[in-house]
């Protein structure tokens, strides 16, 4: 399973807020186990979607502090099931944004209904720790268009 859980960015104000989307097809492997006869997207993946979206919002500022990495899930709630063939809209609003850490309030929605939310805490890892040719292509594609 690849681990890019944001397909594209819809709106972005670097360091402040982001709207993004992810389509979950019925062919995803994890539905076979989660659960037979009742396929639902795992809450941990919804949380990771929110973290990836918020991370892109922070990374878009292109600070020297490095890449945003999830360090703590302060809270998370899962209000409804998300099934196969769902178009998920992810929203993240950065609340605190400092050199050493950032926090974001995040939500995911399906068909206009909030199905999960989380308050996430990020730290930053220097760019030198990643592969030299590493590019967040989803973020880059959005920035190239604007």
């Amino acid at each position: 399973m690849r681990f890019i859980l944001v397909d594209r960015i819809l709106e972005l104000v670097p360091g402040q807020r982001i709207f993004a989307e992810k389509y979950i097809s019925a062919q995803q492997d994890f539905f076979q186990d989660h659960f037979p006869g009742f396929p639902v997207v795992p809450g941990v993946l919804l949380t990771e979607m929110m973290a990836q979206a918020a991370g892109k919002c922070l990374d878009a500022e292109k600070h020297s502090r490095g890449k945003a990495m999830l360090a703590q899930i302060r809270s998370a709630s899962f209000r409804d099931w998300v099934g196969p063939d769902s178009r998920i809209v992810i929203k993240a609003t950065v609340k605190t944004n400092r050199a050493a850490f950032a926090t974001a309030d995040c939500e995911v929605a399906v068909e206009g209904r909030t199905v999960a939310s989380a308050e996430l805490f990020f730290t930053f890892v220097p760019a030198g720790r990643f592969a030299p040719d590493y590019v967040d292509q989803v973020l880059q594609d959005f920035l190239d268009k604007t």
Partner: protein
Amino acid sequence: MTKEEALDWVANLFEEEVVDISLDTPREDIPAWDSLGTLTLMAGLDEEFSIQLNEDQIADLRNVGDVVALLNGAGS
């Protein structure tokens, strides 16, 4: 903020029982005061008390008493 309120705040932040810490408790004796705990402390001071410290200033906080002194200064 009273000393007791400050100790409560520190205990809650580091997920310790307040009876298990004192002003003299060094950071090394608090398991949750690791690198993530340091960031959590910075965030808590910032978000709840508008105290912004850089990483050098945070490194100078060596025990619970140092944090309590900071909180008492913010409350006055």
